[in-house]
């Protein structure tokens, strides 16, 4: 029994063959960066890179859970913007008040999604599209369509701007705990099993008596909560609640999940690989910035969108090839 529960790297890889690519790509890109740019491996670049990408990692892991059930959450960007405004308003009361309440408001949106999807049976894509609009409208209404400055006197901005023990940014500490905790939930609890089972086949899961609704409510609430965390990071790191931020974040998150090898149809995927996917996407832009700095080429910000789309396309091509190979193998059996 012990053997079965013990972590087996080979087994893990054989279960998630499509997520190996992202690790290889990540390592290759890091080595490329280290060799080509002087300051790439410097402490400043590493910590600011991680600090900036902490919010994308947070929404990506939330998105990963949703996609594992075969759903999608398009509302994360708007919800993050909304929670950043909430956090900014609550910042005078300190991080210990602002953060939980802001995250709670994110969970509120997630629960709204869950109710529409699970009980009203509105497709996830439509529900979260509507929430995306609603949260955007909501954040513009409560902020008066202006950025809301945080209270610099309280400890609120320490979260996004300072480091734990002067080594690791606080945002990364929190995201690290989040990822490890969720990984345990996914790999070792019955809830995690159910989430994977729902993505594998919802009707079959229901017939087996699994708590399908509970799993679905959990993933959407989680995704909303993760967007809430990202919103707090945004407000804390940039010193303002930003109702207009978050445009396109859902795409980054989906791309990170897909790059990490999680199947869009659900049922198969890896949380660590999603983190790697988020880092990889961030790294592409980090390297683009360095390349611009070298002066050989000059990519305007508009190219970022084109490259992001091309990247997604490449990954989808890769994933469909892996999928076809797998289904052929299964067929042969």
């Amino acid at each position, binding site marked *: 029994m012990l053997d079965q529960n013990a972590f087996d790297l080979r087994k893990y890889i054989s279960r998630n063959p499509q997520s190996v690519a992202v690790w290889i790509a990540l390592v290759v890109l890091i080595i490329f960066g280290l060799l080509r740019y002087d300051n790439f491996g410097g402490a400043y670049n590493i910590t600011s890179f991680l600090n900036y990408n902490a919010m994308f990692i947070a929404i990506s892991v939330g998105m990963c859970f949703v996609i594992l059930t075969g759903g999608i959450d398009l509302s994360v960007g708007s919800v993050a913007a909304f929670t950043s405004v909430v956090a900014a308003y609550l910042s005078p009361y300190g991080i210990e008040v602002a953060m939980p309440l802001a995250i709670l408001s994110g969970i509120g949106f997630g629960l709204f999604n869950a109710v529409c999807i699970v009980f009203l049976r509105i497709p996830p894509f439509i529900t979260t599209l509507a929430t995306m609009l*609603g949260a955007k409208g909501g954040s513009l209404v409560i902020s008066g369509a202006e950025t809301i400055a945080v209270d610099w006197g309280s400890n609120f901005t320490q979260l996004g701007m300072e480091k734990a023990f002067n080594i690791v940014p606080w945002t990364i500490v929190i995201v690290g705990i989040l990822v490890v905790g969720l990984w345990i939930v996914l790999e070792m609890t019955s809830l995690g099993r159910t989430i994977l089972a729902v993505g594998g086949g919802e009707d079959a899961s229901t017939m087996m008596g699994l708590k399908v609704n509970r799993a679905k409510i959990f993933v959407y609430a989680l995704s909303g909560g993760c967007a809430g965390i990202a919103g707090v990071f945004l407000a804390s790191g940039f010193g303002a609640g930003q109702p207009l931020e978050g445009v396109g974040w859902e795409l980054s998150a989906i791309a990170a999940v897909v790059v990490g090898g999680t199947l869009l149809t659900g049922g198969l995927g890896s949380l660590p690989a999603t983190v790697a996917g988020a880092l990889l996407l961030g790294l592409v832009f980090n390297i683009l910035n360095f390349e611009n700095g070298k002066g050989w080429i000059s990519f305007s910000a508009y190219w970022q969108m084109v490259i*992001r789309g091309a990247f997604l396309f490449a990954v989808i091509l890769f994933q469909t090839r892996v999928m076809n190979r797998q289904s052929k193998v299964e067929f042969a059996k």
Partner: protein
Amino acid sequence: MTSLITDEPMRTDFTRRLKQNGGLIALGIIILFNIIVTPNFLQAQTLAVNISQVATIAIVAMGMTLVIATGGIDLSVGAVMALSGALAPLIFQSEFGTAYPALGLVAALLFPLAAAFLCGLFNGTIVAVLKVQPIIATLILFISGRGIAQVLTNGNLQTFSNPEFSYLGTGKILGFPFQGWLALVIACLLFWLVNRTIFGRYLLAVGGNERAAKLSGGPVRKVKIGAYVLCSVLSGLAGLIVVAINSASDAARNGNLMELDAIAAAVVGGALLQGGKAPIFGAILGAVIIQLVKYTLLANGVEDEVALIAKAAIILAAVYIQQARKE
């Protein structure tokens, strides 16, 4: 028991009628509300303004209806609008376009539509051949289409003065905006396509039951690709109209959030997200409702932000009612 049996047909008949004509009833309520509340609603100018704005939504929504009929969705319509809208001024303001204005004008109409055609081909191929979910497949162009448009224009607002081109968005026939007539003509053509051609038969068959359509020898791939191509070309046309209305092309704003309007219009008009139905004139009805809701809120001083929330509520309500109808 007897009362139940005798009651049942009447009640279902009533609720069915209510659901089938929900769109028309909603439209009636909105118009009535406006006549009472909104100042100057019953004026020719109000009508003209609304027609000129609703035409683009309607044109895109009709294309979206075709895609939804196959059980798909196209998120890239707004990006395709931006792309085609960015290309047109680039062409007729180029050296060639200024040297040969007539040829330049033709090219400025044809090339953007050709680009939109390619976008549709791209979407359709990924969906039909690679079998990627439509949401994800069209996400690629949703992200990068607008990016390409912005790269082409360097993110600049392109302003121009070209009366011939602007006719697309500002011209009038019998007192009504040109693009309104255009939308009507397109609707008639698509209605014929869906209801009177083999393509239309297979379009509905693919959405109704893809496996069955395939097993019965239907050209599933071609039909699907065709639907995405039509949707993209119509979006490209809508992009040109928006640019013509404004006499300016802004790649960052042209068609922004149009995918939401188009999906909402198609769904309000009675398209089933599962596929198998293509109510072309329903899409126009849906577009008119969406436009009137927008207009009503704006005309009565409600802020844009609240209008967003209202739109979200409409989408959810429409899909929920539709869902209930199916069950």
